[in-house]
């Protein structure tokens, strides 16, 4: 097991190193001029040249990659061209909001996807199964940015059930100030007993989280259905059934237990998908996370910020995959020996 862990971790580091090189090469062929946008719209040629020197854009590619690598290891991810702040601290400020949104979305997706997948597998080929299958394909086919706009129009602007945008009601900051501990407003207001703020953060979270949950819910429902259908055919589940256990526990307990492993494997993938889907949803809901930051960086050709966010998300994805692999290897010895 230790050898497997070491090999797997080493491989993950090698992939992240490759990711750094790839993102740097991408950013280096930017056709626009980052030095010009750093210096501002009315800068003289000399000022732009000075900016280019300051940003290190006049050095050869290999030197810049070397410096970038060294910087990443020491926590210096460069300076954002549009916020003029260190990229890593920008990411640190934005990441918690995105994390809150993605976790809420995955919780909704699991709560919806698992029971739906189980129900579909219990009566395969019936009307309910078809409806759930269509529903899961619908979730996977949904353009999230469009769903975000429609939800906003229907639930916030027309029905006025939920707030349009933002993380909480800004007026509450004066009447019920939030003690910041974890950077996650929902958790912060919960642990400090700030109920007015908690209500506001939760109602603001519902719409964006539902939108981001559409894709993972579809994937999870599909996966659970397929896995459970596979498992109920196996001998030991048939045995449980023949011993007279009620169908409820045959499905809910025995078949589902074996289906968890592949569902866990899918979670890393849907986590990555949800993370990237927030890029399309956050700016619509004015959510102060990585997605809004990335969208702003794209429009200003902010190379260090784009490279930083890309690197951060890819590294998070590699880490999530690593964790899932290690957990699966711990549960199933056959995987370690491959």
């Amino acid at each position, binding site marked *: 097991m230790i050898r497997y862990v070491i090999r797997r971790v080493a*491989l993950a580091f*090698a*992939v*992240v190193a*490759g*990711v750094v090189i*790839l*993102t740097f090469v*991408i*950013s280096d*062929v*930017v*056709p626009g001029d980052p030095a010009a946008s750093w210096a501002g719209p009315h800068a003289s040629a000399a000022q732009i040249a000075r900016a280019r020197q300051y940003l290190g854009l006049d050095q050869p590619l290999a030197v810049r990659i070397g410096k970038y690598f060294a910087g990443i290891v020491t926590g210096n991810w460069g300076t954002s061209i549009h916020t003029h702040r260190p990229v890593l601290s920008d990411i640190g400020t934005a990441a918690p909001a995105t994390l809150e949104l993605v976790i809420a979305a995955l919780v909704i997706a699991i709560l919806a996807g698992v029971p739906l997948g189980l129900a579909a597998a219990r009566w395969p080929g019936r009307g309910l199964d*078809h409806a759930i*299958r*269509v529903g899961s*394909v*619908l979730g*996977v*086919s*949904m*353009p*999230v*940015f*469009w*769903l975000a*706009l*429609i939800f906003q*129009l229907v639930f916030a*602007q027309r029905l006025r059930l939920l707030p349009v945008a933002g993380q909480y009601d800004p007026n509450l900051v004066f009447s019920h100030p939030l003690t910041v501990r974890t950077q996650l407003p929902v958790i912060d207001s919960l642990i400090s007993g700030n109920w007015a703020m908690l209500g506001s953060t939760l109602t603001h979270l519902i719409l964006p989280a539902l939108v981001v949950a559409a894709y993972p819910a579809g*994937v999870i429902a*599909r*996966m659970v259905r*397929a*896995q459970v259908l*596979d498992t109920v055919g196996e001998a030991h589940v048939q045995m449980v059934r023949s011993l007279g256990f009620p169908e409820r526990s045959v499905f809910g307990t025995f078949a589902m237990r074996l289906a968890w492993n592949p569902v866990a494997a*899918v979670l890393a*993938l849907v986590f*990555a*998908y949800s*993370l*990237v*889907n927030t*890029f*399309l949803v956050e700016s*619509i809901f004015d959510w102060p996370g990585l997605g809004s930051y*990335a*969208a702003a960086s*794209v*429009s200003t*050709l902010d190379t260090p910020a*784009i*490279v930083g966010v*890309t690197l951060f*998300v*890819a590294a998070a*994805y*590699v880490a999530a995959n690593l964790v899932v692999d290690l957990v699966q290897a711990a549960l199933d010895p056959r995987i370690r020996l491959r």
Partner: protein
Amino acid sequence: MSGIGVSGIGVSGSGRFLRANPLLATGGMIALLIVLVAVVAPLVMPYPADAGAATHPEMALQAPSAQHLFGTDQVGRDVFSRVLAGTRVSPLVALFVLVIACAVGISLGVLAGYFGGIADEIIMRVTDIFLAFPPLLLALAFATVLPANLTSLTIAIAITWWPWYTRLVRGQAASVAGRPYVEACRALGIPSWRILLRHVLPNSITPVIVQVSLDFGGVILTACALSFLGLGAQDPTPDWGLMVAEGQNYFTTQWWLVTFPGLAILVTALAFNLLGDGLRDVLDPRRVLIR
């Protein structure tokens, strides 16, 4: 499963196929309809000029009516005509993306699987690096550094899509390469390129066909998402993602600007996903894929 076998008998056969695979049949029919619309779009559009740069300021932002089924946009163009014309934009991008990704991905996969050794090692490690990015993210990074147009969009998505096919084909090719008939070919002195083309490639390609049909909807969604962010099609191209982005500013009062192009994306992606899903059930029932 049996549907395909009996469909040759006649009407009753196709009826049975429909009942056995209702999702596949529905998806297939909608997909066929979309392809048909794409082919005849210039003939059926009520206002063909509105698919391009035409402007009618006096008719701007009209609600849906008998003259303009989906209403008009901010410069007075007929949204219905533009949605119909959109069948020639993102679905076509998806088609080109998949052709490029297959050409690159399949060749590299076959080479890696058949030859093994150092070539395999290099190709698969590069593939690992590309697969470490969620697809939309890498396409976003590439699209940002390329000039914003449909060619760049196609290239950006294709660059992120090929590694999936490489990985898929490599496994198949490696198992085919070890089979006795391939060894027999080698013993007979048949050149490698001929073995690759005649034996390894045809025997490794089935899973790719299933995967391509499953990916079509996903590529359309990715293309529309990037256009929505302003990284793909530019006005006056009648791209659905771009139309949603342009309608966003007027959305609270003019709901039709965003609703109809978005519905077109949803219906198209849904049709091809149902089709791909059904095809997989029929051709390759043992595979469970999540992409």
